């Protein structure tokens, strides 16, 4: 193993890590807002990938152009899921935690079933996109262009999110609601509206990630499951609810995955991520950036 291969794989791990952060940040946002873990998060990613695929297959819209459209569609979808399902799940008086887990889990199963029914279990991929399959060489390191572009989109999304949360009225309403949902009701902010917009925003972010992923990853009904666990680990590593913890968590996960792949056979590369998650929470039971 030469120094070059190490740098090479760490560089691609870093790019993948930024994308993992983008996949996970919606989950962290929703959790921070209302203490709910969306167990259908992976399926949100899956439908975003399918949407990107069909826009490409039927209308020849490149994933780069369809990304904003897909994000907007997912925004609506996320808000509807909140209004139709989650709004009622959080009202449960008995077994509140269990109801949240299983109502979103049930949704995930339905979405997977619908995808199988309408799109068949076949693996699909986008073949001739602008960026697909291209690599670029930076100082002797080859970087895949789709992943590089995904990393840039992720950074832009995080910067945008930072300004959005800190500088806009809606962002402030979001922060206030997460601090104290009861008190914001007193100043005339509709809690349900903020939550619905929060779900929309969370879904839009994973929609953005899905569009980029569709450029270089196979699209099939169960694709969400493989990324969902990574997203939960990413969010938990950063500390549930911390939006920028998800960013850092994504970087850690990407780098750990790449370094594990250097040492262990590829089929075991996820073990490194799992081991790091366990190590971190055993030492810090609320993640790297979670308040204790």
């Amino acid at each position, binding site marked *: 193993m030469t120094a070059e291969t190490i740098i090479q794989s760490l560089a691609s791990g870093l790019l993948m890590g930024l994308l993992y952060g983008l996949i996970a940040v919606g989950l962290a946002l929703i*959790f921070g807002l209302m203490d709910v*873990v969306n167990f259908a998060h992976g399926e949100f990613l899956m439908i975003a990938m399918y949407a990107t695929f069909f826009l490409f297959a039927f209308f020849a819209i490149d994933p780069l152009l369809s990304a904003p459209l897909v994000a907007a569609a997912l925004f609506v979808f996320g808000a509807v899921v909140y209004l139709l*399902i989650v709004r*009622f*799940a959080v009202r*449960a*008086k*008995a*077994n*509140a*935690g*269990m*109801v949240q*887990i*299983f*109502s979103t*889990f*049930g*949704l*995930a*199963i*339905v*979405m*997977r*079933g*619908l*995808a*199988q*029914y309408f799109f*068949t*279990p076949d693996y699909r991929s986008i073949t001739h996109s602008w960026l697909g399959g291209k690599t670029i060489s930076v100082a002797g390191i080859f970087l895949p262009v789709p992943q590089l572009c995904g990393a840039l989109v992720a950074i832009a999304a995080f910067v945008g999110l930072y300004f959005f949360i800190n500088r806009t009225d809606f962002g402030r309403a979001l922060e206030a609601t997460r601090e104290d949902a009861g008190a914001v009701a007193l100043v005339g902010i509709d809690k349900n509206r903020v939550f619905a917009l929060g779900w929309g925003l969370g879904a839009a972010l994973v929609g953005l990630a899905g569009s980029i992923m569709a450029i270089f990853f196979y699209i099939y*009904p169960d694709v969400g*499951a493989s990324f969902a*666990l990574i997203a*939960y*680990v990413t969010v*938990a590593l950063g500390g*549930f609810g911390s939006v920028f913890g998800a960013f850092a968590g994504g970087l850690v996960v990407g780098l750990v995955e790449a370094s594990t792949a250097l040492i262990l*056979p590829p*089929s*075991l590369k*996820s*073990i490194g991520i*799992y*081991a790091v*998650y*366990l190590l971190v*929470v*055993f030492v810090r*039971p*609320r*993640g790297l950036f979670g308040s204790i």
Partner: protein
Amino acid sequence: MDTAFAQRRRRDLIVAAIFAGLSALVPLFVKDVYVQNIMVLTLMYAALSQSWNILSGYCGQISLGHALYFGLGAYTTALLFTKFGVLPWFGMLGGGLISAAIAMALGYPCFRLRGHYFVIATIVIAETALLLFQNWDWAGAALGIDIPVRGDSWLKFQFTRSKLPYFYFALVLACVAWLVTWWLEDSKWGYWWRAVKDNPDAAESLGVVVFNSKMGAAAVSAFLTAIGGSFYAQFVSYIDPESVMGFQFSLLMALPAVLGGIGTLWGPVLGAVILIPLTELTRSFIGGSGRGVDLIVYGTLIVLISLARPQGLVGLFSPRRKEAAR
């Protein structure tokens, strides 16, 4: 304690005895192998969900990684039999003890975690074990183990000609899991667990050793789950990592209890009786084409029941159970 509670417990025991007796008679009238197969699975999931319920329902430590113990039970039995010729009964006991020991070893660091951190840790640990078994050549790696047929006998716990022996064993297993829960409900442990579930800090301050009671729940729960796994290995006579340790098993063990009523004595039984036949029937009648209709039906049901009856379906049968289902 109070007489009403003692009466309820006596009544539960009588009702359970009647149900078990009636179930034992069912195969006399139902000869169809397909239906018998569904009955075996229903009883097995009733037992598994009852075991899961001890840790996750009564003690409130939600595990979505119980497939680990199920798989360990299945693998211990199968490996001991195929590699060393050890009879499945010893394998079953061994698998149970190994699982209980591993549950305690894992519980030692994990029980410090709360809420979603704990749930994710259980998923991650089970997935790690799955990956290790998939890459463990001696244990058959991803291809798994074919348990050789050595003739029908109770000694070797193999039956190729009839499903009935499996049915009766599964019935006994479900009864044992139910009885263990029934007994624990009114024991010192049962009260500790409910206190730990409701408010661990208050329980600790009142002298409940929270950590030890979680460890106890984990050990009992893992032991019984592993027995179920051993049984499954004998029943299907072929196991591979994905089919005994995959995430879907963790979910399938939890769902009957969740739908029936988590942390209740009858919830897992009721949930399994409704859910497992429904799953199997939708799979064979509408899901056969692999087009996912079974998933749609199944998922919709989960969403609707968890939203409409968060305390589970047992509440429908007796208004007094509502407090117990809390």
